[in-house]
Every structure is written in C-alpha cells, then in structure tokens.
C-alpha cells in the first residue's frame, strides 16, 4: 500500500534565485524593490533575465511606491499546508500596485464584508527570520 508521507509542518519560505535576490534583499530592508529594464525602462515582476518588451538583458532594481488597489481576492479556509492552519481563514488580496505590477499578499485588519475591487491598500513588511521578510497589506 503506497501512502503519502505526512507534509512537514514547516513554513514554506522563498528560495531566492540569482534574478530575484535583489527583490528579497529589498524586502528584508523594508523596501519594495522592483526590476526595471535599463534599456526601455519598463518594470517587470517577477524578476527574470530578459525584458519581454525590448529583449535587453540589462536591468536594475529601484525602490517603488507601496500603494495600490485591490484587483481581486480569496479567503483561504482550508490550510493546504499545515503551517497555515492557525492563520485560517485568512484573506489574500491581489493588488494592482501603483508601481505597475501586481502583488499577492495577506490583507490584515480588513473585514471580509469590506472587500471590494478598487479598495486602496498599502504594502507592509513582516520579518520572518534574519534572511526573509514577507509582504502583507493593510488599509491605506
């Protein structure tokens, strides 16, 4: 009888890549750093080697504004990873950032009944350990 091993109740954490390291370094410093093309200037997220607009491989990370508007959301009730059992139910908002990209992160301090497309929120920073800081949203 094949049975699945029980999922380890560990918090899933980001493993930065060579491309995404500056984003996570920024998070740790409380700065929302986004990748911009050095050639055409367009922003892209998630970080990757080539600009899909002009194909330049030169890019730089710049600090970006943290405000945005809710694009949509979900409320997670079932903890697919045991780690999130305590937190459930929790709201995850997908936000159109003023910086021109989207960010998915937990939204705190807002009641489910008050959720609507276009609601203003801002990104905040939650240190998890010495290396990793994760984003979350609060009302602007």
């Amino acid at each position, binding site marked *: 009888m094949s*049975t*699945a091993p029980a999922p380890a109740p560990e918090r899933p954490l980001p493993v930065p890549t060579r491309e995404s390291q500056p984003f996570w370094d920024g998070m740790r410093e409380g700065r929302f750093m986004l990748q911009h093309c050095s050639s055409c200037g367009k922003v892209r997220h998630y970080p990757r080697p080539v600009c899909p607009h002009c194909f330049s491989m030169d890019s730089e990370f710049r600090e970006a504004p943290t405000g945005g508007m809710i694009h949509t959301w979900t409320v997670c009730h*079932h903890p697919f990873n045991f780690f999130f059992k305590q937190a459930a*139910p929790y709201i*995850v908002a997908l936000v159109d950032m003023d910086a021109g990209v989207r960010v998915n992160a937990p939204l705190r301090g807002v009641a489910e009944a008050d959720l609507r497309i276009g609601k203003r929120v801002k990104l905040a920073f939650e240190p998890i350990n010495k290396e990793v800081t994760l984003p979350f949203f609060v009302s602007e």
Partner: protein
Amino acid sequence: MAHPLREKAAVSGIGETAYTRGTPKSGLALQLEASLAAIADAGLSPRDIDGVVPYFPGGGIAEDFIANLGLPDLKLSLFVPMGGATCVAAIQSAAMAVATGVCNHVLIAVGRTGYSGARVSTRLQQFPQFALAAEFEAPIGMFAPAQLYAQGARRHMELYGTTARQFAEVAVVTRRHAILNGNVVMNKPLTVEEHHASRMIADPFRLFDCSLESDGGAAIVISRADRARDLRKPLVTIMGVAEGHPESPASIAQRPDLLEFGLVKAAPRAYSMAGVGPTDMDLAEIYDCFTFTVIRQLEILGFCKTGEGGPFVMDGRIALGGDLPINTHGGLLSQGHVVGLNHAIELTRQLRGEAGKAQVKDAELGLVTGYGDMGDGSIAILRRAA
C-alpha cells in the same frame, strides 16, 4: 484549403481503470493497465505502438513503456507538461506525429494516485511550472490550485454577478451524469443545498466546487486515420485540435486579465481547422477542475458571451437532454481525476454510440477541452466518421 492536420488522425482506442479512492497499485501500474485496455479496444497489439506521450511529471516515462509492453521500435517519446491541459494538447502532438508519417499509433497515458499517493500541494512542487508560485505565493499561504484560481472566480463574480448558485448547478448536473456511469468515485445524488452547505476551501470555492483527489489510469491511442478505419471500433476523427498558452503563463497574479486563459487562443484555431463553430456541437466535455472553470470556458468557447456563463449553465441547458450536454461521464468533479483524459475518452464513447445511459442521441460532433497549470488551454474537436 483544408488544414493539413484535419481528419488525418483518429482516436482509435480508449481505456480506463476503475476510478477509486484507495488502491494498492502504483501510478505506473494504473497507467499501463489503462494502456493495455486502450490498445485492446483499438484491436491492436502493444507491439504496434510506436509513439508514446506519458503524462508528466508523475507515472512512467518512455523507458517504462518499452520495458513493460515490449515495444520493438518506439519512434517518438514526448512530454507535454501543461498540467490539466496536457492530455488534449498531447492529442495535437500525436496527430502531428501520425499525420506526418513519423508514427502509426501513438499512446497517450495517465496513471495517478491522487488519493492514495501524494496530494495536490505536494505533487505540484515537482512541477517546474509552479516554481514562481512556490517562491512568491506559497510563503504567503497561496499555492494550491483552489487558492490560485479562486481569485479569478471572485473577480468574475464581482464584475458579472456570477453566483454560487450557478457554481452549484455545474456540480449538481455533473453528479447526475456521473450516476449514469458505472465507473465513478461519487455515485450518490448531490443537491444545491448540499453544495451550499459544504465547507469553504478557498472562497468562493466550496468543497463541491473542487475536483476529486482520486486514483486511476486512463489512456487513448491516436492512429493514422487511414489505418484507424480498418481497426476494431467506429472511426472517430480529429477535425480540429490546438493548444494555447496565456500571457504570464507561470503566474496568474501577473496576467493582465486573469480570465484570459490559453483557450482564448486555442479555441479559434481548433474551430478554424475543423471548419465548424460552437453551434455545431452536439455535446462538450469541459475540463472541470473547478465548477467556475467550466463556466468561464463555456464563454471562451463561444457558447455564450463573457459574463453570461453563469446564467448559461442554468435551466437544464448543460444537462443530458439540454441544448449542450456537458461532462456526460461525471468529469473531474464526480467521476475521477485523471487530468481530463477521461473527458477525451467519454467524447469518443459518445461519438461511437457507446455511452450507455448517458448517450446523447445521434451525437456526431463534439469538443473536449483541457485546462492546466496556471491557465494553459487545449481543445480537440472530434467527429464520428460517416
């Protein structure tokens, strides 16, 4: 001029294992059991198979098929890693292989221990397509498809007024169809009230909006149409087939329009290749990882306009006897989850007139879709040959 792929390939054989929750068999054993059934259904010997597209990742690879089936001369081994869009997209790859003469008979096979083996979140960590979700979304508590797709469903509800009642209709009709099929995991009736009372998984998806975690195998054989004509079963030809990839394919969050799946690109290509449109369909087998996914695909497929998918599924329209019967076998929601290869099998069965109590009368033309990863899409249009 007709498209060079049109009617050049056929679904010559179909095979399934029992769909269960719990099995002592491995994914590979299930995959091979279904493969042997499909090959026998076609009236072929395993030795005739000269191309193989195993579902990946999970189950066997070409080497396993050669070793187990004694394939003397495998000419093509492919992976089509598109999650739930894989199986129908693989029909396109297989059709290309037989139409060009590279192969005569290509096997597409899935074996899955989704209940007794690794569950969805663990399974998806093997997928390179989920690397971005693993880095940026799993740490904030979003990783399972139910969570990732829920945001698109919520946006559709907010923009167009789509309701949980309409989601429930898809679940209830699909269950009614499943009960007519002898080989299903869920064989008891489901009511709208039971749907609404089921626990919330990721709002707006309740338990009965979600497809099953089940064990089972499924396989089909794609053959050169001229060879298939001489085989055991009535000829079912591939009129049109296509795959499509959305913008921002590995991150739904960054997609300009969350509701623009790969099917937006694939469906017009398949219709054009087949020379038919949505109003010509006698039935449709729609990939149903979630109830909402069916509603949105019906819009993309042109059965109704964007925003009208919710009302479209009401009033018996998608049930047997309605204008467009869908998922006449019970789908992923009620029959079993073999990544949608069961949808292609059911469409073939319907067009052969082998669908038993769920038979759509005089079914001649139908379509099957796949939907996977973060929104890859695929579609095949099949016809019973005269």
